[in-house]
């Protein structure tokens, strides 16, 4: 038997190893947030939130049209992606114990790993060329293809964590299967499902490549579902290509807005779904 102090030392070492790794992992995250805040804050003023981009090469102008575009994209994408993602997740968790379920699960995992630029090209071929114009619809479809596998997988996993005794308790009360699934199982898994949705929104809000081929980018505010539109990520990308200092500053500001937007959506979703009755 090992000496008492040796075992105690091993315990300490394991703890310190974990702690060190956590610190290493959060250093990049912390420094990114710090850089974004430091460089972005000076760009923030009233014009920044109320005006579209100014004349290239001159000072002034804002990113209001890009913020609007990103919000529209998040809304449209969620409208398509959230119901499909959650319902597919429910299917896989509750009824997917068969060959078809296995195939769907595999396909879904492959889709989740797909390079987003490929999805952008797909949406270009299927939607942009069909409509004949770059459009928010094409952008939302491309982003929904990215969103669905994330939500499907997190929903499936959250539902599987709900103990079977809940389903049986409900069924034994003479509650129908669909009611059991939606009112008992889904409610119990709510936190995990919401986390999945928020993760997917954070992911799509940060996508750039598929947007180049679907919404194109624009100097103007939203002007219709079949017209080109701007988004924060596209704006950041275009501003970073410009050779002007003040353009870069606005770009940093836009990055700060994007990070804050995703964070606040997260907090709002948590507040809206908070309940004192939890698993």
């Amino acid at each position, binding site marked *: 038997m090992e000496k008492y102090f040796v075992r105690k030392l091993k315990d300490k070492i394991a703890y310190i190893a974990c702690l060190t790794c956590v610190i290493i992992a959060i250093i990049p995250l912390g420094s990114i947030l710090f850089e974004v805040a430091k460089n972005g804050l000076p760009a923030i003023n009233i014009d920044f939130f109320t005006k579209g981009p100014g004349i290239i090469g001159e000072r002034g102008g804002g990113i209001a049209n890009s913020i609007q575009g990103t919000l529209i994209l998040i809304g449209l994408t969620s409208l398509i992606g959230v119901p499909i993602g959650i319902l597919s997740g429910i299917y896989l968790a509750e009824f997917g114990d068969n060959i078809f379920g296995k195939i769907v699960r595999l396909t879904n995992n492959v889709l989740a790993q797909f390079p987003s630029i490929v999805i952008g090209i797909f949406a270009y071929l299927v939607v942009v060329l069909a409509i004949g114009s770059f459009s928010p619809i094409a952008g939302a479809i491309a982003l929904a293809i990215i969103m669905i596998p994330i939500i499907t997988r997190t929903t499936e996993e959250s539902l599987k964590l709900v103990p079977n*005794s809940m389903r049986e308790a409900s069924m034994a009360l*003479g*509650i129908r299967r669909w009611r059991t699934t939606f009112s008992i199982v889904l409610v119990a898994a709510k936190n995990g499902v919401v986390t999945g949705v928020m993760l997917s929104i954070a992911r799509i809000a940060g996508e750039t490549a598929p947007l180049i081929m679907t919404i194109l980018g624009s100097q103007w505010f939203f002007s219709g579902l079949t017209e080109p539109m701007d988004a924060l990520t596209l704006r950041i990308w275009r501003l970073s290509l410009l050779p002007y200092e003040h353009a870069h500053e606005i770009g940093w500001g836009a990055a700060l807005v994007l990070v804050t937007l995703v964070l606040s959506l997260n907090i709002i979703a948590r507040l809206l779904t908070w309940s004192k009755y939890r698993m």
Partner: protein
Amino acid sequence: MNKELVFINSKSMEKNNSNRVYKIETENLNAWFGTKQALKDINIKIRAKSITAIIGPSGCGKSTFIRCLNRLHELVPNARVSGKVFIDGVDIYSKNVDPVVVRRKVGMVFQKPNPFPTMSIYDNVAAGLKLNGIRDKRKLDEIVRRSLEQAWLWDEVKDDLDKPGASLSGGQQQRLCIARALAVEPEILLLDEPTSALDPIAASKIEKLIVSLKKDYTIVIVTHNMQQAARVSDYTAFLYLGKLIEYDETSKIFSNPKEELTENYIAGRFG
């Protein structure tokens, strides 16, 4: 709707014949998990408004048996049932019977207390009604109160109805589950080792509660505690390896069993 009508009609037919002695009758009931047979040709007649205990060693099919009485067994993947189970003379496995309607008539309480963790005490009791579309607040209030009173829980929780069901103690949670089962107004109550996860004081309270419910309900209780079977039940069935070995009045089973196997089990020589 059609399916429900068949069952409800036969039920109302039964009302004219309310002196029916046997509430539940099984005929060559077999049950499988995949290829493993859990029940073998069970033939039993369970008396109305009495307590019938199902005893036997672990894995003998006790739980499977009562899960066949409310068609819960078939929800397990690859599980299968053959034979007939008559409730009030209607075969609940016949094609035109809707299992959901059967389950409303046959309530169940499980081994581990399993209140819905995402619901308040009130909503736990009202769940079976609310999720079946009953919205009338006054009617719900009335049923929740009556069910909690029947389950001897009302006085302990009447001021905390909006607290989470999971905040109660183990014994209270189990009585909450009994109240939840009673709220949908079943005629039969199945109890699957309802006290095995509880401390002795909470368990004895549940035992007394079960006896008090006998006047209104037909009760089938699975237990691995022979003293409990002797204390609460009127009839006892002994299952072994999926077969019904002996079934008689509890006093006879415990004082003068006919089968040697039963005697050995009751004497604690195996199991």
